[in-house]
């Protein structure tokens, strides 16, 4: 029982990180109809920047803020320099370009930082509190809950309560009409990419300390989990992404705890296959047919 409770909290904590990462994917999918396969590599780049800053200044929080800013800048750059010029006649093109970016980023990070796992700091202890002899969750887990919760609330407010959010939704839903009504559709697209990349960087900052450390390919497996989370929730739905993230997190935690850590990626693959074949629109799909 104690193990079950511990694994559940661990799964929720992991799940929220995947949820944040999946949210980043959903943000870009809604805005541009591209699944950003470079999201993982972009997040790793931001984490490396934070790692450098933290090592130079000794302050985790300065690195944390810089990582989010680096994410914003990277998102804008990727959209303005590359993604804007992708030919959308085939859905393959966006995917292939994103994969090219993965190679570029991983190669560049390898050249600058080397291909070793670098240990990263955590701002809070990862030792779990015990309540009545049962390990529950750590300060770090609480930090994850807080950070991801804040992002979800902020994004919800942005999209439902502000003029900018309304413009972003309009630009994604009906670009031509929005343009006629004076919305800068290109600007909204860039903003969407920037926000998504920043959220992705946050997810990267949260997940890297719980794994082996930072490495150019550190996010490959995380990306697959997050993609699965986004698909479970339906690529179009932010709420779905959060629920999907929690589902994937719990699954990974139970499988790692009760079976073996090495089985976890296979469990994710199995979940992905089941969802794609059984309910391809995701659990939160609207009745509208899939476009791509």
């Amino acid at each position: 029982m104690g193990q079950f409770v511990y694994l559940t909290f661990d799964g929720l904590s992991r799940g929220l990180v995947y949820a944040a990462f999946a949210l980043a994917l959903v943000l870009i999918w809604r805005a541009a109809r591209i699944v950003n396969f470079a999201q993982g590599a972009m997040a790793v780049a931001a984490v490396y920047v934070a790692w450098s800053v933290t090592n130079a200044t000794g302050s985790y929080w300065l690195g944390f803020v810089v990582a989010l800013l680096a994410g914003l800048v990277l998102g804008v750059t990727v959209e303005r320099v590359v993604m804007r010029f992708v030919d959308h006649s085939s859905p393959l093109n966006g995917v292939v370009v994103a994969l090219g970016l993965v190679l570029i980023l991983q190669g560049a990070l390898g050249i600058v930082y080397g291909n070793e796992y670098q240990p990263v700091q955590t701002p809070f202890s990862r030792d779990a509190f015990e309540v009545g002899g049962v390990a529950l969750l750590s300060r770090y887990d609480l930090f994850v809950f807080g950070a991801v919760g804040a992002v979800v609330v902020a994004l919800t407010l942005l999209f439902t309560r502000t003029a900018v959010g309304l413009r972003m939704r309009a630009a994604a839903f009906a670009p031509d009409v929005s343009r006629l009504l004076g919305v800068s559709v290109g600007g909204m697209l860039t903003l969407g990419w920037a926000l998504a990349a920043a959220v992705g960087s946050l997810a990267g900052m949260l997940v890297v300390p719980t794994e082996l450390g930072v490495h150019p390919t550190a996010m490959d497996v995380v990306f697959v989990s997050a993609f699965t989370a986004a698909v479970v929730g339906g690529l179009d739905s932010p709420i779905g992404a959060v629920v999907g993230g929690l589902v994937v997190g719990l699954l990974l935690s139970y499988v790692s705890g009760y079976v073996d850590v090495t089985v976890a990626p296979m469990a994710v693959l199995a979940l992905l296959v089941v969802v794609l074949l059984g309910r391809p629109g995701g659990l939160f799909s609207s009745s509208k047919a899939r476009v791509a």
Partner: protein
Amino acid sequence: MTDVRTKDAVTAADAPVTARRRRVHPVIVIAVGAVLVIALTYVLPPFRNYQLATVGAYLCVTAGLTVLTGLNGQLSLGHGALMATGAYTLALTQNKFLNLPLSFAVAVLGTTVVGAVIGLAAARLRGPYLAGLTLAVATVVPSVTSTFDETFNSDQGLSVALDPPPETVPMEQWQAWLCWGAALVVVLLLALLVRGRFGRDLRAVRDDETAAKLAGVDVARTQVLAFVVSAACAGVAGALFAVLAQSVSPGAFPLTLSLFLLMAIVIGGLGSLFGALWGAVLLVLLPTLSQSVGESTGSQRLEGNLALVVFGVVLVVVMLAAPGGLASIRMKTRFRRNR
């Protein structure tokens, strides 16, 4: 005036017919290729022969992948994992029976079965969904080898027992013959396959599924078949890599390998078997070049990673400038001239 116009119209209509090169039969191309390769293996020093062999092994998988992605429009990031399947199957069979032809047959068969399973799922998926699923397949390789470590010996992998080649032939030359023999057979079969009805079905499904269905093409069957054929080619390539390295380990089939394969077929022009050859050549040449650059600057980090950056830049630039690959640029200018 009318005369001039009719004359113009006639030349315009005739131009594509006369301008179209007469297609050389694939058997002839393959025969010429075989002669060239055999001649080359006698001239080249051992290390170059080894590289030539690697090109042949890569050609098997790039040719299969370009048919799947270029002609049928299915993007697979799982071909690295399919190669791993072929390589591990060969290693296990070879270590048990020490019979290379048998091991090859089992390896190709095994990969085909795995490919059929993935293909059945893939036929129901489009675009990014398919890419995501195959990406998940690619990342699952280390997990499988560690979970069933009694069979696959986790990260260490397996060594492959091989009979030594006939004494008159140096090892590297024998490897080049083996790889190119397999590659030429694979390419010949693919070329014959895509010339006929199957190739037409592939393109019809890629361009417009509804129209293909209306024309009587079984869309799902075509897609599954394309995946199976392509997987079999990846199995051959994986088996060849196992023979070349005389060992298999999950580290030899990382996600980057799948991305490299994608780059190779994109740069050569999606759907072109000749393009697959250029892609395979680049897959061997560019890492060698970047390694020598790394060595000359004395930077170890540059050695392994420069190739990644170059491949990535090439992939992005080609996709932005000419989404049909480099071969499509030539076709476009020819069209314009005809108009």
